[in-house]
């Protein structure tokens, strides 16, 4: 009796050990040669020590289509699933194992294991993380018209959108339909050199269109984190990628029904930000790096920028203000003068909606000459793109604080949460300029006839410009109580923290609707 018992347990242990060995020493060595960690090493970095609970370790390929199958050669069916803790909070994971059939998505791994994780993460309202390193669908199990029954994955992702945070960490290839996993996720860090994503892998592209290109050239981080905007943050290696995932999750609640976690950073809410004087020139034409402003205002070492290398004329990211998690939207005068264009509006709109979905307060740092105008941007559909940012800012019901630092021109003032967009606090710095357009442009339109008729047009123009300049002073807006105050820039941090605390119990009622129709 005792012998049988221990023999059964020994058999179980042997089965587990085999599957924990992934695709075997040879495949693991190849994985390492590519500069990648194994799936289990990655999970070790993702979760707090000894908190990972695996579901489906003993799974393997099945004769799904009545064809051949390889139970021994497919430990866990190529995907490790389960949950663990990140900073003490439960997070669910679907981690592809490239050492097992190139991490391809098999019927068991996808339709049973990954589907179960999606179901449970949503049931418990906990974040879900994909560690992607996969050749895509396992074609031998997926080809044919039973494809008609697939696709639950993306449907589930859409249902989960805005309910639980979704992260797609790009640690290897991610080709074909699976590229929609990052496409639908809230955060997509990409490892430089080894990761890639594309709707069609290189071989499929060659067959479909004749184009010859590598997966890396087509969909590496140099494309998605710089040109397409599909990737969020480019990172150097697997460890940095997983650290970015943990950092991202630290600003978000487990679900949309909770507030984001508060961390006392020890940085006083009343600290005066005297260094702003050295960072921001009062000449509105002159550039500076707004990221220095952000770092100076918010809690020490709390700044986590998102999409830092794409649409650089606007800066977005998470920070903490007196310990509260905030989403920062800041114009960047150092890039394209901080002018808003199509990509900048897309980037900001997407970030604002993520913050609003997950109860993260928004802080707008405004210094915007307006939206770019002209024939090129009209062809790009800038009205449609700019409208997304208008929409996102209007729709957001989280606490919204607006600091008009320097320029607040035209629709730029609107999308950066001007007075009409229900800010909880809106203040300006003393040298701010608020107007539908700059004085030079305004004079040419309003006083064109007077200037032309004048004996000395240049002098008249200069006089008119001065008149307009007096009208764009923030003291005019403050005099009409259209802004709450004009503040010493050094007080900005205090105003933001107190504003967030003021708005903590915020409730906004809107008319019932199924959903709005955001311009996309």
């Amino acid at each position, binding site marked *: 009796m005792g012998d049988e018992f221990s023999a059964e347990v020994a058999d179980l242990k042997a089965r587990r050990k085999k599957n924990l060995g992934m695709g075997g020493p040879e495949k693991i060595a190849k994985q390492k040669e590519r500069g990648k960690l194994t799936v289990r090493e990655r999970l070790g970095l993702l979760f707090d020590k000894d908190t990972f609970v695996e579901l489906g370790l003993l799974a393997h390929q099945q004769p799904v289509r009545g064809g051949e199958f390889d139970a021994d050669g497919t430990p866990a069916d190529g995907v490790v699933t389960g949950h663990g803790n990140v900073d003490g909070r439960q997070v669910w994971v679907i981690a592809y194992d490239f050492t097992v059939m190139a991490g391809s998505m098999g019927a068991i791994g996808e339709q049973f294991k990954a589907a179960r994780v999606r179901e449970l993460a949503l049931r418990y309202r906990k974040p879900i993380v994909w560690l992607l390193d996969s050749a895509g669908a396992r074609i031998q199990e997926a080809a044919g018209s039973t494809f008609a029954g697939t696709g639950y994955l993306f449907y589930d992702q859409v249902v989960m959108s805005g309910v639980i945070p979704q992260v797609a960490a790009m640690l290897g290839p991610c080709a074909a339909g699976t590229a929609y996993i990052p496409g639908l996720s809230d955060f997509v860090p990409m490892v430089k050199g080894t990761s890639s994503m594309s709707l069609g892998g290189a071989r499929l592209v060659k067959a479909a269109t004749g184009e010859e290109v590598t997966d890396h050239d087509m969909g590496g981080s140099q494309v998605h984190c710089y040109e397409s905007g599909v990737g969020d943050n480019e990172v150097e290696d697997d460890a940095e990628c997983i650290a970015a995932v943990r950092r991202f999750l630290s600003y978000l609640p487990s679900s949309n029904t909770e507030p984001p976690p508060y961390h006392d950073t020890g940085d006083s809410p009343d600290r005066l930000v005297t260094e702003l004087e050295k960072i921001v020139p009062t000449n509105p034409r*002159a*550039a500076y790096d707004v990221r220095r402003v952000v770092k100076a205002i918010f809690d020490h070492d709390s700044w986590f920028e998102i999409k830092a290398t794409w649409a650089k004329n606007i800066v977005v990211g998470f920070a903490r203000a007196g310990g509260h998690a905030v989403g920062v939207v800041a114009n960047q*005068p150092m890039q394209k*003068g901080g*002018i808003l*264009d199509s990509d900048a509006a897309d980037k900001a709109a997407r970030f604002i909606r993520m913050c609003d979905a997950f109860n993260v307060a928004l802080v707008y740092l405004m210094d915007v000459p*307006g939206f770019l*105008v002209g024939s*090129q941007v009209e062809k790009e559909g800038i009205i449609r793109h700019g409208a997304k940012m208008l929409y996102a800012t209007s729709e957001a019901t989280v606490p919204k604080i607006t600091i008009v630092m320097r320029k607040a021109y035209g629709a730029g003032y609107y999308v950066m949460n001007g007075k009409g967009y229900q800010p909880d606090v809106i203040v300006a710095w003393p040298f701010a300029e608020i107007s539908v357009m700059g004085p030079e*442009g305004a004079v040419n339109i309003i006083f064109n006839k007077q200037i032309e008729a004048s004996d000395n047009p240049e002098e008249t123009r200069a006089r008119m410009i001065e008149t307009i300049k007096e009208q764009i002073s923030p003291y005019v807006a403050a005099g009409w109580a259209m802004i709450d105050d004009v503040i010493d820039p050094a007080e900005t941090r205090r105003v933001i923290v107190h504003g967030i605390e003021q708005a903590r119990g915020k409730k906004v009622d809107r008319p019932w609707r199924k959903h709005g129709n955001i311009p996309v």
Partner: protein
Amino acid sequence: MIEVKAELVGSVWKITSKPGDKVAEDDVLLILESMKMEISVTAPRAGTVREIRVKETEVVKEGQVLVVLD
């Protein structure tokens, strides 16, 4: 050889480099004016200015080559 292009439409406000200048990465080559903002055009990497293809006050299009570096 690298072609440094205009990121957006605007006019050339000030040219701050000349052919033969040795420049480091991020050095300002010229300044554009667009939407009433001064927009610095910088060297993407260290090199020598071979040619300046524009004149001050000239209006440039997005993607137009402004400076050629060796």
